[in-house]
C-alpha cells in the first residue's frame, strides 16, 4: 500500500491480526460453562412451565442479539452517511454485528419452543386464553406462533445475510483492493443502504413480538424505539470497553482517545435519547391514565421499585453528569467505568421489560388469578409456588415481602450466572472473529481519515 500521506502514520507498528490466546479462551470458556451451569440449575429448580429458565433465555438472547443488530445498524448508517472516523476500528463493529447470527440461534430455540408450546412466556400463545379474551383475539393476526417463528427466521435471516455480505466484501477489499479505490466500498454501500430499512422496520416488528408481547394486553408505540435505544447504548458501551481492552493489549495504537471521545459522545447522547423515550412513554401513559396502559407501569412501580427507579439513576443520571464534561469522555478509566455501569444498567432495563410480564402470564396461565394493575394483596400462593422449589436463600425472604419472587423481582445468582455465560460467549465470538481478519482495514477509502481523526 502506497500511502502518499505519511506524516500521520503511527509510530508503533500495527499488529495485523488479533492473537486470541489460549488463556483468554480458557477464561471465556469458564464463563460460558458458568452460564450453562446456571441455566441447567435454573431449569432443574424451576416450576413446571420453566418460566424462570425461559425468561432468562429470552432476556439474554434478545439483549445480546440486539447489540449485534445495532452494531450492524450503526455501521451501515455510518457507511451510508460517508462517515469515516470509525474505519480503523470497524472490525469491532463487523465482529459484533456478526454475533447477530449466534443470537438468532438462541432466538430460534425460543421461537421453536413457542411454536411447540413448551413454555408460558407469552399469553397470546395459549389457545384457551385467546379464544376467551377479546383483546388477545384482536391481536391474534400478528401475535401468533407463525409470525414469531417465521418473522424471526425471515427478518433475522435477511439481517444476517446482509451483514455477512458486508463482512465478506470488507475482507475482500482488504485482500484485493488498493487504498483510495471505491470499487469494493461502492458494493458495500449498496448492502449498507439495504440494511437500514430492513433493520429499522424489521427490528420494530421483532421487538413487538420478542419483548413487548410478554405483556400481551399492553402496547406502546414508543416501545420499539425505547428498546432500540437501549440496545444502541449497550452496543456503544461494549465497543468502548473492547477498544480499551485491545489498546491495553497493545493493539490499535492508531485508535486514540479522539475515537473514544466520539464514542463517549454517542454514549452520552444516546443515554439521553433513551431517557427521552423512557420518559415520553411514561408521561403519556401517566397523563392519559387509561387503565389498559397504566397497568404496565403500575405493576413495575409497585412491585419492582428498586429496579424501576434505579434504572433511571444508572442509565441516565450517572452517564449524564459524569460524561457531561469534555475531559471525562477522553479518559479511558472514566468512560470505561461508565460503560460497564451502563451496560449492566441496560441489561437490568431488559430484565424489567421482560420478567414482570412473564411472571404475570405464568401466574395467569397456572390459575393463580390476576396479578397486574388490579391486584389486591392476594398472590401469596403464587409466591409460595415458586418459593417451594427454593431456588436460593432469597426465595424465603419472599414469603415476608409481598410478591417477591426469586429470579423475577430481582436478578438472583442464577440470572447473574446466565448473564456471565452470555457475555462470555459474546466476547468469545468477537475475539474469535477479530482473530480471523486483519485488525486494520487499510484498503478502506476512509482509512486515513479515521487515522487522522480529531474531535
Amino acid at each position, binding site marked *: 500500500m502506497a500511502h502518499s500521506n505519511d506524516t500521520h502514520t503511527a509510530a508503533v507498528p500495527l499488529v495485523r491480526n488479533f492473537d486470541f490466546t489460549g488463556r483468554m479462551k480458557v477464561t471465556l470458556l469458564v464463563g460460558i460453562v458458568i452460564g450453562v451451569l446456571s441455566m441447567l440449575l435454573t431449569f432443574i429448580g424451576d416450576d413446571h412451565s420453566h418460566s424462570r429458565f425461559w425468561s432468562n433465555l429470552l432476556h439474554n438472547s434478545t439483549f445480546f442479539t440486539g447489540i449485534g443488530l445495532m452494531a450492524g445498524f450503526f455501521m451501515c448508517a455510518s457507511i451510508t452517511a460517508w462517515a469515516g472516523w470509525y474505519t480503523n476500528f470497524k472490525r469491532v463493529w463487523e465482529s459484533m454485528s456478526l454475533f447477530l447470527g449466534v443470537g438468532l440461534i438462541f432466538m430460534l430455540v425460543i421461537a421453536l419452543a413457542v411454536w411447540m408450546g413448551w413454555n408460558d412466556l407469552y399469553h397470546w400463545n395459549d389457545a384457551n386464553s385467546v379464544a376467551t379474551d377479546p383483546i388477545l383475539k384482536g391481536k391474534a393476526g400478528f401475535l401468533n406462533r407463525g409470525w414469531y417463528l417465521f418473522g424471526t427466521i425471515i427478518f433475522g435471516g435477511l439481517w444476517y445475510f446482509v451483514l455477512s455480505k458486508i463482512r465478506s466484501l470488507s475482507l475482500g477489499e482488504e485482500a484485493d483492493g488498493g487504498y483510495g479505490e471505491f470499487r469494493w466500498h461502492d458494493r458495500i454501500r449498496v448492502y449498507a443502504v439495504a440494511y437500514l430499512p430492513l433493520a429499522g422496520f424489521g427490528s420494530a416488528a421483532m421487538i413487538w413480538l420478542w419483548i413487548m408481547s410478554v405483556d400481551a394486553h399492553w402496547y406502546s408505540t414508543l416501545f420499539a424505539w425505547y428498546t432500540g435505544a437501549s440496545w444502541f447504548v449497550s452496543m456503544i458501551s461494549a465497543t468502548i470497553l473492547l477498544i480499551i481492552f485491545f489498546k491495553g493489549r497493545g493493539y490499535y495504537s492508531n485508535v486514540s482517545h479522539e475515537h473514544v471521545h466520539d464514542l463517549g459522545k454517542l454514549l452520552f447522547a444516546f443515554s439521553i435519547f433513551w431517557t427521552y423515550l423512557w*420518559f415520553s412513554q*411514561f*408521561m403519556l401513559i*401517566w*397523563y392519559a*391514565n387509561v387503565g389498559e396502559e397504566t397497568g404496565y407501569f403500575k405493576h413495575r412501580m409497585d412491585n419492582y421499585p428498586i429496579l424501576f427507579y434505579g434504572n433511571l439513576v444508572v442509565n441516565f443520571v450517572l452517564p449524564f453528569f459524569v460524561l*457531561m464534561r*469534555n475531559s471525562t469522555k477522553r479518559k479511558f478509566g472514566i468512560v470505561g467505568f461508565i460503560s460497564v455501569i451502563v451496560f449492566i444498567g441496560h441489561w437490568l432495563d431488559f430484565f424489567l421489560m421482560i420478567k414482570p410480564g412473564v411472571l404475570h402470564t405464568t401466574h395467569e396461565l397456572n390459575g393463580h388469578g390476576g396479578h397486574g394493575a388490579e391486584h389486591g394483596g392476594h398472590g401469596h400462593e403464587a409466591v409460595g409456588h415458586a418459593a417451594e422449589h427454593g431456588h436460593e436463600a432469597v426465595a424465603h425472604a419472599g414469603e415476608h415481602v409481598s410478591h417477591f419472587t426469586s429470579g423475577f423481582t430481582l436478578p438472583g445468582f442464577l440470572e447473574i450466572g446466565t448473564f456471565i455465560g452470555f457475555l462470555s460467549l459474546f466476547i468469545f465470538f468477537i475475539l474469535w472473529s477479530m482473530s480471523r481478519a486483519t485488525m486494520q482495514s487499510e484498503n478502506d477509502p476512509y482509512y486515513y481519515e479515521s487515522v487522522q481523526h*480529531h474531535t
Partner: protein
Amino acid sequence: MGAKKLVFGLYNDEEVLLEAVKSANAEHIDIYDVYSPFPIHGLDPLLGLAESRLHIAGFIYGMLGTLTAFLGMSWIFTKDWPIIFGGKPYWAVPSFIPITFEVTVLFASIGMVVTFYIINGLGPGVENTYLHDRITDDKFCLAFDSDKMTNADAEQFFRKTGASEVHEKDIK
C-alpha cells in the same frame, strides 16, 4: 487599551497556517493572535489557550433554569394558585419535566450567548476593528505585535512559512 500596530500574514490554507504557528513557537516569537473563518483543529493547544470556561457558565445557567422552572411551578401549582389539571395531583412532577427541560435549555442558551457577547465585546451597534476583509472569507491570518518584532523579521518569517500576503494595520 492603547493603539497597537500589528503586522500580519495571510495564508491560503489552514494546514500551512498550523505549520507557521509551529515554527513561530519554535523560534519563540510572541504570537499576537490568529484569525480564521472557521475553527482550526489542533490550534488551541499550539497557542497555549486555556480551555474555555463558557460551558461551566452554561451549566450554571442551565441549573438556574431548572430550579426556576421546577420550584416556580411547584410553588404556583401547590401554594399560590392550586388548580387540578386532568385529575392529577397539584404537585404533578412528571408534567413539570418537559417545561423544566425547556426552561433549562432557554436559560443555558441565552445565558451563554449573552456571556459570549460580553466577553468578546460584541453586540448590536458595536464597531469592531478587524484586520482584513478576507479573514471572514477564505484567508487565515497570523498576527504579530510590531513592538516586539521588526517588520523585516516579520516579513522574512511570513515569506519563509508560505504566507500569500503580508500587511500592517493599526488597531485600537
